[in-house]
């Protein structure tokens, strides 16, 4: 049965019992829906309102601008499109690398041995650290002077020190490294739990057929994991599109605005500069639409490839 679509049976005759059953079911999901309505959907509506004006927090609806804010950020001024490009670059770098590494790690640590448990715990530990703390640590590691660990390492190999966070080519890569470090354990854990649910007989059968471990991985493990991989792909993509805290703390937008992401654009326009709340609203709506498109595309495009038991 597909994890993501529902199996709804056709409605039967309206008996008193079925009405009571329906009401009870709705009572179970109502709190969740209410919370979402107030804290996720209402803000979206509010943002649409805000995006049609130019104002600040005291006076959000100062001057009416219609869709001018949208035209501003999409066409007239390059800043938003640059942040969009930066974010897209980040996503394209981060998702494949993190996903494949997590898969490899989870298969590697599959067997229930002490060493694997220990390694698993260690790999997950970075996830526990608050993003601000990680950002402090890693900006120290990537410090441009010889005092930085990264520079110290490459000098051992004879290269010159490099300004990691100050050069637009490498700044985003550094942020990606930090985020991979922080979240590999988390994703590997999810894959691990899925791996444990693959029946042992499948592997035994493969061994009987004397299939090599690599072949087993591609022909058996991957397809059996495909629901989880699919799910992780979607969540990773949408989450990395929303990246904010780590970039802000590590590079503050990087040299110029080469590492500024869309959420940073939204936050800065809402909180740092005056009179730009409408721009933040417009950017938020554009971001939401993009995320919806990505999720829909993922569903349509990849669901066919997903193999269900």
């Amino acid at each position, binding site marked *: 049965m597909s994890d993501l679509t529902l199996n709804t049976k056709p409605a039967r005759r309206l008996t008193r019992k079925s009405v009571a059953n329906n009401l009870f079911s709705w009572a179970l999901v109502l709190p969740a829906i209410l919370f979402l309505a107030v804290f996720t959907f209402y803000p979206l509506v509010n943002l649409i309102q805000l995006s049609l004006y130019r104002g*600040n*927090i*005291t*006076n959000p609806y100062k001057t009416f601008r219609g869709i001018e804010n949208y035209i*501003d950020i999409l066409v*007239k*001024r*390059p*800043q938003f499109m640059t942040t969009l490009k930066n974010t897209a670059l980040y996503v394209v770098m981060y998702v494949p690398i993190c996903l494949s590494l997590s898969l490899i790690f989870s298969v590697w640590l599959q067997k229930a041995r002490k060493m694997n448990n220990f390694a698993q715990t260690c790999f997950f530990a970075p996830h526990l650290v608050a993003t601000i703390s990680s950002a402090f640590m890693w*900006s*120290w590691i990537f*410090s*441009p*002077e010889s*005092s*930085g660990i990264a520079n110290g390492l490459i000098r051992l190999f004879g290269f010159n020190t490099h*300004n990691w*966070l*100050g*050069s*637009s080519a490498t700044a985003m890569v550094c942020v990606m490294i930090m985020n991979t470090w922080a979240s590999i354990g988390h994703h590997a854990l999810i894959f691990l739990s899925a791996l444990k649910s693959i029946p042992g007989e499948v592997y035994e059968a493969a061994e009987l057929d004397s299939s090599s471990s690599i072949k087993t991985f591609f022909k058996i493990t991957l397809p059996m994991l495909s629901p989880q991989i699919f799910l992780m792909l979607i969540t990773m993509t949408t989450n990395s599109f929303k990246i904010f805290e780590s970039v802000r703390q590590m*590079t*503050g*937008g*990087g*040299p*110029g*605005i*080469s590492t500024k992401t869309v959420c940073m654009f939204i936050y*800065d326009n*809402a*909180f*740092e*500069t*005056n*009179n*730009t709340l409408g721009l933040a609203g417009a950017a938020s709506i554009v971001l939401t639409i993009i995320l919806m498109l990505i999720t829909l595309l993922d569903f349509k495009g990849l669901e066919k490839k997903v193999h269900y038991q």
Partner: protein
Amino acid sequence: MKKLVALMMALLMVASMASFAVADEPTKVIFWHSRGSGANYEVTKEAVDTFNATIGVEKNIVVEEVYIGGYGTLQTKTQMAKQSGEQPTVAVTSGVRNAILMDDGLTVDLAPYIAASNWDTSRFFDGIFYTAGNEDGAVYSLPYIRSTPLFFYNKTLADSKGLTEAPRTIAEMEAFCSKLHTVDAATGEVLTYGFEMTNDICYLQGSMLYQLGSSLGGGGEASCLTDGAMKKVLSDWTRWMDEGWCRVPTAEALGTSERLSQGMLGAFVGSCSSLGNLVPACKDNNIELGVAYFPVYDAAAPACSIGGGCIVLLKDNTDAVKQAGWEFMMYLLSDERIAAEAIATGYLPSTKTVVDNADMQAYWAENPGFKLAYDQLAWGTTEESPFWVDLTEYKTNVQNIVGELVTERKITVDEAIQRMLEDNAHIL
């Protein structure tokens, strides 16, 4: 039994009447500020505690200080607080942003309070008093923690190279710093950079713009972009970096103060508030700290920026609370308080009369560097007037482009200026 009950009731009545007499709730003043850690926080807390213990007891006021964040966060929170109905009484804002709050109608004109208390505002330097909002007899903000930029250098290193006189003009500074720059002859690695200037567009580079008779921008005009001043400043700065002795500013772990005290940097320009920690840090590392005026293009026409913050009184409070807030503001800006804060942190005393304060004189005798920052007030300009509602957006855009220019050098100065004009076309 009845007698006992009657006695108890009588006692109760007396007690309640007594409690009514005593329970005169003190007026609560909430003070939002930007000074969160270290000496800055300690001195703010001291101000509040001292006030509460002296004038507060007298006039039944209790002040509560709350750290909110940097100037940007503070401004936004103050604006948001209007929506949530829990505005503070007194708030700190940066020089620019206080006019934004005024424009939003959140702050109170202090002129009637000043008149009623017979408070002398001529004590303040004209340059920092007459900012946006304080024209035509109205007073919407008072200068609180102000600073001017200074030139700091490693005097020990300079003396060892025979550079005994501190530079005064920019030309002298170029010669001075290029000699200060130390390179390891064998590896070619830089041991000590000659100079560094961080990308603080309205404060440091802004000072240079003022010296050229221009300014970063005001009232919707960005004259520096068209009259060549910005071009000269950026060209000079990039030339210094090209010549090798000026370090490229980057966002990173160690700041300029730390690097100077560690011997990695020979000189830099920065806020006088850095003095507060530079002096002991250099002492710890056996470096003598040299302090000089911010270098100027023309010694006969000096100018520099005045940065820092003001305090404002917020409208959305009862009259009693506002009056109490005003008492606190007067206390904060008394000469004794200003001297105490200046001594503890390095922020400038903003009045002319503080020179008569004994503590201040003693401190200046011991630390002549602090007096230099104070002297610069005589030719300092604030960036805030005339008021321009989009100034913060403009500044951010310009600062981003300058950052791109200096960090990567992928664009030329002319291209940078062109982009500044384009990026800000909608607000200029």
